[in-house]
């Protein structure tokens, strides 16, 4: 099946944060109690109750202050670090190319949270399960758009087949030379494609995101062995997975 993706056109985003709230509404996630940090950016980070949010950035070039907004959520990488490193095989790819998390299999070890190149998944410390955006798999499988895309009032978010999304992004790039494309080839191709008005570095997007070394993940799991969530079996399975099957 043709893979699906979201186009995030930064030049159209007005940071109304409709996407943030629509995501919470559809996924039945509660609001968070936060403090005023001197920015409209709220909440300050993703969490078990916030799967997407708008990052506000104030960048000064000495004279003028510029304000940039970027929607942050799971990038649904084609070569996903979480999928490769999850010791309990709780993460898989669905027919749309979205990275899914099976909470029944999740053991809450925190490898995905720690080693995601974009630092997206979060561990819910009440349920001891990881949680992240599923690209609204339930809606998309039933012919609907993801909640964030549907609610976007300015059309900064578009949802469609990944190849169509890429070609429309390229045609916009050709019209205005000052745009940057992010997500076409990173980690085998992301399923969130960004059209940026500045270089990816300004938006704190890694230039060459990579899958971390499995040895690091193994060491991380070793450290966690003493906690009640993990046992020797998990470590053995992880060892088999990391050193037997990854030919990255």
């Amino acid at each position, binding site marked *: 099946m043709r893979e699906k993706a979201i186009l995030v056109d930064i030049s159209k985003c007005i940071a109304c944060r*409709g996407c943030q*709230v629509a995501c919470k*509404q559809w996924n039945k996630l509660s609001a968070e109690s936060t403090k005023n940090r001197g920015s409209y950016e709220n909440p300050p980070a993703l969490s078990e109750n916030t799967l997407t949010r708008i990052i506000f950035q104030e960048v000064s070039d000495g004279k003028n202050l510029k304000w940039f907004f970027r929607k942050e959520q799971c990038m649904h990488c084609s070569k996903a670090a979480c999928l490769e490193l999850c010791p309990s095989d709780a993460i*898989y790819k669905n*027919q749309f190319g979205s990275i899914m998390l099976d909470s029944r299999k999740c053991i809450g070890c925190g490898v995905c949270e720690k080693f995601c190149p974009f630092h997206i998944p979060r561990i819910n410390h009440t349920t001891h399960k990881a949680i992240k955006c599923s690209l609204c798999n339930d809606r998309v499988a039933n012919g609907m758009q993801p909640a964030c895309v*549907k*609610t976007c009032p300015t059309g900064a978010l578009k949802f469609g087949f990944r190849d169509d999304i890429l070609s429309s992004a390229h045609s916009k790039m050709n019209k205005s030379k000052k745009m940057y494309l992010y997500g076409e080839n990173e980690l085998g191709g992301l399923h969130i494609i960004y059209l940026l008005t500045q270089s990816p570095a300004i938006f704190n997007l890694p230039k060459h995101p990579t899958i971390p070394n499995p040895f690091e993940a193994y060491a991380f799991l070793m450290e966690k062995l003493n906690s009640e969530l993990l046992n020797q079996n998990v470590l053995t399975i992880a060892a088999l997975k990391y050193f037997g099957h990854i030919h990255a």
Partner: protein
Amino acid sequence: MEISRRNFLQLSSLSLAGATLTSFGFDLKKAQAYADSPELRIRQAKESTTICPYCGVGCGQIVSVENGKVINIEGDPDHPINQGALCSKGSALYQIANNDQRLTKVLYRAPGGDAWQEKDWDFAIERIAHNIKLTRDTNWIENEKDIPVNRTEAIANLGGAALDNEECYLLSKAMRGLGIVFMEHQARI
């Protein structure tokens, strides 16, 4: 399925074959992913349309109701104003209906009093009706410059952003019926 001895043997040989296939590198993970087609949580819900109460833009919304409870509210793609889109406030409308911080009992503060008392609905409706009748009767204007107007200027109605389109309609009907002319709403739709 009832398992007899015969199909038990068949099943065992099948699963053995399955296990052998898996060990040769047949990836079952893909099959699992393709079978993944979850049910939409609003599939059984009854849908009706409404207008977002928050501001004067007047975006259309679809409310999904199941067993008498609002379970989801999102933008109405057929509405000409917003074409399915909603801002952060409109997207949060669901929590007006479903909110554990809502008042569920009548709170009454007596004239001159400084404390809230819990009262029942009978008391509240009786009291409101009594006061409306009293104020309306004592301030009734029947004629102005010999033209019949039949109104009261002593009562005003202030709508709030938590009132939806249908509630505002009912309120304005009731207020006009009472001869109240001062009606205002934050959104001014």
